């Protein structure tokens, strides 16, 4: 059963990645990436990493994907009228993806104890103890890096010459 679940996840990842290669609208690409990330978070849960699965949903779907959406909306040029040459009418693609994700979730939540017998979980407590124990300096370095990124983004966006 766990093999079936992972095969379904592989199918979802394959479908969304193939869709990323052919879609024209960046917004469709972002939505496909979001479905792919949700499937990956389920894969992480199956692999015995519930903390990372939660982080995947919170950080990737919650923050990084929203960042992509903001960038796409800022980049979108309002002048081109989009000649409506859509070769995929309707909503069958996201509908199919939603059905697949629902099937995966049903399998996951009905057979969860069986999965836990296959791969033992490593809970958030052990991760936290490792992060703030032997890896404390690395964690602080990453915090410093993220702080530096804020400054770098401000420096990139600064304009000296026009409309100051």
């Amino acid at each position, binding site marked *: 059963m766990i093999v079936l679940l992972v095969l379904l996840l592989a199918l979802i990842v394959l479908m969304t990645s193939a869709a990323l290669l052919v879609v024209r609208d960046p917004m469709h690409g972002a939505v496909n990436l979001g479905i792919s*990330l949700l499937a990956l978070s389920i894969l992480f849960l199956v692999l015995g990493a519930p903390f990372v699965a939660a982080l995947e949903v919170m950080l990737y779907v919650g923050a990084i994907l929203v960042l992509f959406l903001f960038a796409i909306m800022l980049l979108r040029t309002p002048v081109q009228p989009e000649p409506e040459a859509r070769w995929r009418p309707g909503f069958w693609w996201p509908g199919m993806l939603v059905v697949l994700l629902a099937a995966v979730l049903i399998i996951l939540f009905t057979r969860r104890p069986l999965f836990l017998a296959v791969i033992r979980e490593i809970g958030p407590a052990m*991760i936290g103890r*490792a992060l703030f124990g032997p890896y404390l300096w690395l964690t602080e370095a990453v915090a410093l*890096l993220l702080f530096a990124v804020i400054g*770098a983004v401000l420096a990139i*966006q600064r304009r000296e010459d026009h409309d100051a």
Partner: protein
Amino acid sequence: MTLELALVIAALLFLAGIALILLRRNLIFLLLGMELLFNAAMVIALVGGARWHSSTGQVLVVFIMALSGAALALTLALLLRVKQELGGDTVDALRHLREEADE
């Protein structure tokens, strides 16, 4: 069996990311491909952690997440700047920049 299938998923993600970076011309899709590459690395790290039942894999994944977020913030800011300065969001806009610099 599950771990091998997860490695297959990682390979799929890696191939898709490389294909996105090489084939698409839109810079947004290039960044999406970069995220797919980071996710492939994360899957491999988690498979290693599950195989040897160690928390190091998950710690590595947490660091990869922070690094990919930092890289993405920088590149998205650069992308917006490219759009402002050059008026395009495809790879061709960047090639135009190089030709101007060569002249």
